[in-house]
């Protein structure tokens, strides 16, 4: 029952997102589509003009409500039109080639950041009276956490790639290597991902670590921890089985949500490294006024986030059955 209710809720959000996609271009001052057509006068192929007209409902006299249902129909059938930036590729194709890169890069950096950050957080929360274990790292993380990710990426790129020449400056793999599952290709992919990974992990560590630390410190003030101490249980057992275990729940929620955010995760960092993922495609779409591509990427991101949220709900009602009672 609870799960069904949550599911319906997400369906309603999905509808809201689709509708937003329909309303936004129509709400804007001037007509976004006609200005694109005007700028590309004579050079825009008829399919593209048709796609634009479809997406924006210009040059046709069908009533708004009918346009809306036509748009819904197309969207639900995965008909997103043709991308202008990568003409004549259909939008779906562009996304299909960009998605794996983002899943790989942002996915692995999210997992790494979560694991390292959580372990560090347990350590500093447990030894919270120590300057070296808690004070200094917490301070450092706090600051790292409020630096723009893309700027850290820029600084790394400048020092490690431009100055020292250790890492490539752009793209996701060596283009002279054929794209197959060969060792050579895999190594090249890893090599090209090192810098963006480093920048993403370093800037996200702090959030996980401080979150875990604060959860743990709160849990450690509970009575059952004191009882465990009085029973004379070893510190290590109290820290892991009593403390960290109970402090993990919010972290897991956060992690699942971060997984959902992966698709739309690091637009600006991908732009810095010209990494051919979804974020970079979104940037291309925005700078080229490629509205069909832009809208579709937004929908894909929303779907990912909704799926992750739904999984969190399922997971949560399983880990902590009380939530389903509310």
């Amino acid at each position, binding site marked *: 029952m609870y799960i069904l209710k949550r599911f319906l*809720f*997400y369906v*309603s*959000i999905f509808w*809201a*997102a689709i509708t*937003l996609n329909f309303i*936004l*271009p129509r709400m*804007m*001052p001037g007509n*976004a589509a006609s200005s694109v057509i005007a700028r590309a006068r004579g050079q825009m192929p008829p399919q593209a003009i048709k796609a634009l007209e479809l997406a924006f409902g210009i040059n046709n006299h069908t009533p708004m409500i009918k346009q809306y249902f036509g748009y819904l129909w197309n969207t639900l059938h995965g008909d997103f039109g043709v991308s202008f930036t990568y003409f004549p590729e259909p939008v779906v194709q562009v996304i299909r080639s960009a998605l794996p890169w983002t899943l790989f890069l942002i996915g692995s950096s999210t997992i790494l950041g979560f694991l390292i950050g959580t372990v560090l957080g347990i350590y500093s929360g447990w030894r*919270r*009276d120590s300057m070296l274990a808690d004070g200094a790292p*917490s*301070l450092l993380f*706090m*600051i790292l*956490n*409020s*630096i*723009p990710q*893309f*700027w850290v990426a*820029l*600084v790394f*790129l*400048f020092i490690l790639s*431009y*100055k020292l020449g250790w890492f490539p*400056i752009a793209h996701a793999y060596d283009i002279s290597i054929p794209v197959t599952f060969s060792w050579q290709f895999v190594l090249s992919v890893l090599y090209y991902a090192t810098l963006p990974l480093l920048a993403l992990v370093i800037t996200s560590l702090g959030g996980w670590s401080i979150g875990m630390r*604060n959860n743990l*410190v*709160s849990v*450690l*003030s509970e009575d059952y*921890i*004191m009882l465990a*101490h*009085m029973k*004379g249980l070893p510190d290590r057992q109290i820290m892991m089985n009593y403390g960290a275990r109970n402090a993990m729940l919010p972290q897991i929620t956060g992690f699942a949500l971060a997984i959902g*955010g992966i698709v*739309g995760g690091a*637009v*600006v960092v991908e*732009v810095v490294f010209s990494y051919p993922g979804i974020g970079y495609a*979104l*940037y291309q779409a*925005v*700078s080229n*006024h490629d509205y069909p591509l*832009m*809208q579709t*990427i*937004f929908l894909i*991101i*929303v779907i990912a*986030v*909704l799926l992750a*949220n739904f999984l969190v709900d399922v997971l949560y009602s399983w880990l902590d059955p009380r939530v389903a009672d509310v």
Partner: protein
Amino acid sequence: MGTNSLGQDVFSQLVYGTRVSLLVAFAAGILTTFISLVVGITAGYLRGIADGILNWITNVFIVLPGLPLLIIVSSYWNTKSEWPIILIISMTSWAYGARSLRAQTLTLRERDYVLHARLVGRSWWKVVGTEILPNMLSLVISGLLFSMIGALLAEAGLDFLGLGNVNTVSWGVMLYWAQNNEAMVNGLWWWFVPPGAAIAIFGGALALINFSIDEITNPRLRRKKVKLNG
């Protein structure tokens, strides 16, 4: 700090850019907090249908991904000043605050002193103003600081992508021009290091204030660890 591609002094730009960056951070922070206060308290205090609707809207905005939405909305909106950016940032970031303020209001309104104030017939805005608001001040302030950091970073990102108002100077716009004029290739680190460092220092400072407020107001974080078998 040298000069930029047009021979303008980087240090002067940095100082001048502070205005825009801080304006966006402060204004968007305050506006965001204001929206979440209004929505959160109204939903939590009125309950019923109003709560149902407001809560649905809040949850929609929590789930909709912030930065992509920000990028898309600002690409439609041709910006000639900072205010559209401030507005868009606030519109996309108020939901988290609203949710926690609603939860806080829900528990506060059942407290005895609040019930008392309501029973003696004080008007709702007096009850909210004197009994409920003061009791969630630390939550409000921490939300304010968080949204200021968020706005600062969001503005820097948008400007860097060239989606902000690139005709005025802000820290993010300086980064945009540095990137556009190929500071990297030419080894001109002073084009992009100072504005980024300024953002980092300001953001870090806000985070530290936030952390201290947390330590002071949250008794669980303040209490020393109990150690019995040492």
